[in-house]
């Protein structure tokens, strides 16, 4: 069954984790004939019931093992807690299913290696659903970068700053997986939304591109979670004690690539602040990009010899930023040219549509997906490496080379 689907299509997909999966619902319609929603798997009966009402023909499973045993399922989309992604992906690949996993791919280095080995051994398609890579502006910047408009890129930064404290607990104060993770883990635990797009701009893991060399991580003290739990659930809740939380509020990771580019990542999932989904920057020898601070603002770009003014002091006119989208006519990514009318209507800035489109295309065309298993673990391993760096007072950590075929050669 593993690759029997071949180019016949459509790919019969099971969504595992019905809540996040629901956000993808609209994305199936424009892809009819290539991928269909065949099953939903969720432990929560209420979530399944909701699907019964909207999609009566979709199979419903409460047990992941049964999905893997169903011969009429070609592929699974893991929209489950991040602590489960790697184990479920490995099991699904072994059961002959193609896998698209929500981010990150894994939380330990052992899981990263096992995932690579399993994907390579089974030959099934594995893709990381890093939807931020497909956002319009990120793809536009990627096009500009690949065509050399920024010159040599020396610096890139990304931030994921999103107060999700209300998702760390249920209504009665019990910890969800997000809460459990922040209780037990301290580091850059959610790296791929920032790192994925940046890695693509720099051509990480690509022929003639670049590779991560080493990284360090610093994390601040915990301050925002225990105050929140105290206010919400009272002094006697375990979360009202600062010491209960391992994860500090702000984490900073610095990565240096083998070609000498510097990457800065920032993560803060609990401090109060207006949410901004895209928080990126880039500097090259011929120009710079900085994203909008909020929805009413434009992302800005300055390109030597394209944008007005000069940065050199003798120039009569000082350099001035331009809106990034002034370059959309000439440099829009071809995926966005082709699908703009569909993607613009759909979730997460259109990117949910693109990951589904890309995953089904990779299966039907029998090719590697744009975000393959090596990318997935290279980006995701920042989490375990960051925890080791933080625990040792900010010591630098070398990246494993997951492209080596086995662990002994790393």
């Amino acid at each position, binding site marked *: 069954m593993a690759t029997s689907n071949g180019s016949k299509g459509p790919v019969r997909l099971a969504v595992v984790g019905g809540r996040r999966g629901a956000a993808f619902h609209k994305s199936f319609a424009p892809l009819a004939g290539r991928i269909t929603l065949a099953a939903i798997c969720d432990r929560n009966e209420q979530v399944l019931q909701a699907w019964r009402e909207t999609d009566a023909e979709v199979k419903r499973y409460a047990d992941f093992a049964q999905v893997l045993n169903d011969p009429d399922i070609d592929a699974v989309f893991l929209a489950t807690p991040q602590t489960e992604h790697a184990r479920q992906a490995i099991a699904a690949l072994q059961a002959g299913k193609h896998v698209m996993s929500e981010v990150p791919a894994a939380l330990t280095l052992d899981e990263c290696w096992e995932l690579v080995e399993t994907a390579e051994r089974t030959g099934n398609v594995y893709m990381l659903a890093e939807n931020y890579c497909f956002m319009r502006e990120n793809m536009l910047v990627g096009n500009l970068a690949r065509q050399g408009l920024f010159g040599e890129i020396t610096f890139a930064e990304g931030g994921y700053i999103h107060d999700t404290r209300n998702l760390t607990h249920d209504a009665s104060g019990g910890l969800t997986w997000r809460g459990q993770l922040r209780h037990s883990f301290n580091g850059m635990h959610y790296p791929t939304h920032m790192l994925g797009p940046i890695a693509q701009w720099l051509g990480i893991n690509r022929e003639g591109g670049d590779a991560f060399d080493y990284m*360090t991580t610093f994390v601040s003290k915990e*301050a925002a979670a225990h105050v929140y739990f105290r206010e919400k659930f009272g002094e006697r809740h375990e979360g009202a004690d600062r010491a209960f939380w391992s994860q500090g509020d702000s984490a900073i990771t610095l990565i240096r690539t083998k070609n000498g580019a510097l990457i800065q990542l920032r993560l803060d999932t609990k401090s109060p602040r207006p949410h901004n989904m895209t928080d990126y920057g880039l500097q090259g020898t011929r120009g710079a990009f900085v994203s909008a*601070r909020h929805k009413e603002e434009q992302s800005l770009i300055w390109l030597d010899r394209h944008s007005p003014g000069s940065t050199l002091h003798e120039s009569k006119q000082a350099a001035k930023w331009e809106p990034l989208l002034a370059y959309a006519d000439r440099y829009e990514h071809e995926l966005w040219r082709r699908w703009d009318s569909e993607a613009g209507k759909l979730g997460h800035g259109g990117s949910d549509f693109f990951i589904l489109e890309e995953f089904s295309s990779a299966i039907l065309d029998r090719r590697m997906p744009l975000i393959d298993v090596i990318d997935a673990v290279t980006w995701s391993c920042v989490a375990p490496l960051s925890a080791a760096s933080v625990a040792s007072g900010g010591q630098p950590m070398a990246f494993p080379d997951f492209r080596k075929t086995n662990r002994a050669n790393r």
Partner: protein
Amino acid sequence: MANNDKIVNLAVVGGRRGSSFNKALTALADRVALKAVCELRQDMLDKWQEQFPDIRTYTDYSKLLEDPEVDAVLLATPLAMHAKQAAAALRAGKHVLSEVIAAHTLEDAWELVEAVEQTGLTYMMAENYCFMRPNMMIQNMAHQGVFGDITFVEGAYLHDCRTLTHTPDGELAWRGELQRGFNGMNYPTHSLGPLAKWIGINDTDEFDFMSTVTSRNGSMPKYFAEHFGESHPGAQSDYWRQGDSAVTTIRTKRGVVISLRLDWVSGRPHNMTHYGLQGTKGAYLAARHDREDPLVWIEGRSPGASYGAKGQDMAQWEPLWTHREEFEHPLWRQWLSEAEKSGHGGGDFFVIDEFIGAIREKRRPAIDVYDAVLWSSVFPLSVESAASQGKPMRFPDFAKNARRNG
């Protein structure tokens, strides 16, 4: 209090940068008088003398230090000379206002501390960015607890200064020598100074350890090749040690993380203030360019809620200036018109004002020698860290004698 009504006689050392303090000196003429200028270039001295016929001119710094009518020196000289010149001035009985950075080696930093402690004279670092209007307003808000418990602050100095790295015929100026000789966070105080003041470093908190990672260089060889041809040695990448971008992360003893970024060679529109802050009750974000407002969001004051409770609007940034009536720093309330007329967003005015005030009132200046050497020590520590893949480095305890003596 004896000196309170005495005018401080100041000598400017380094005529080029020194000249940009002219407006500030004029505005403060009732308390400070320009007495002398020391500068190696005679043509520059002539210009000063044209503008100020009564001043004395020196080409030899040691001669200046022998002038009994000079009370204080303003060191506006190349960065690597500051510490030695400051220590010599203190030993000669002069108060010192030093341009940034205060010292570029740990040995120089300790020597400077010792000179200040032994002479008891006023030493201040002229970190003008600390006095900029939004920075002082944020400091005021931070000290009043508006942002709650602060966990993260960031600052960047992003300014294409490549034209200042060389003379017209391609010889290296001091900024060029700096790019050639070191790789690290070689200009940390414009970004770090305001942040240190916001979070009470050397007051309620201390730096613990730091790490620096730099990128490769690209912009300097490209620029030198384009301006002086491929045969100029600066057209080669390995001629320059400094990478284009440097990022330093600092952790304080109370667990605040500080992020600093430096890039003074890449092409990019200049933005003088590039800062951010996150606390448990709110956040601050500087403008990206001078036609934007700095933004602030404070729980309970600003519109919306941070996490998505049902029926609540999403949190929305406000211009920082919305809260000006309440939180403008007292110094800016007092001196607004004078400050806005002088250079560097008012910073130059307040630097002189504070230095003169500290001398006349015999008190510690707002940026004393312990602040100066601590912030500046990021330079030597970063060079060592960057050379060993970002190895964490501990901060020296420069203020140990000050604490022991109460």
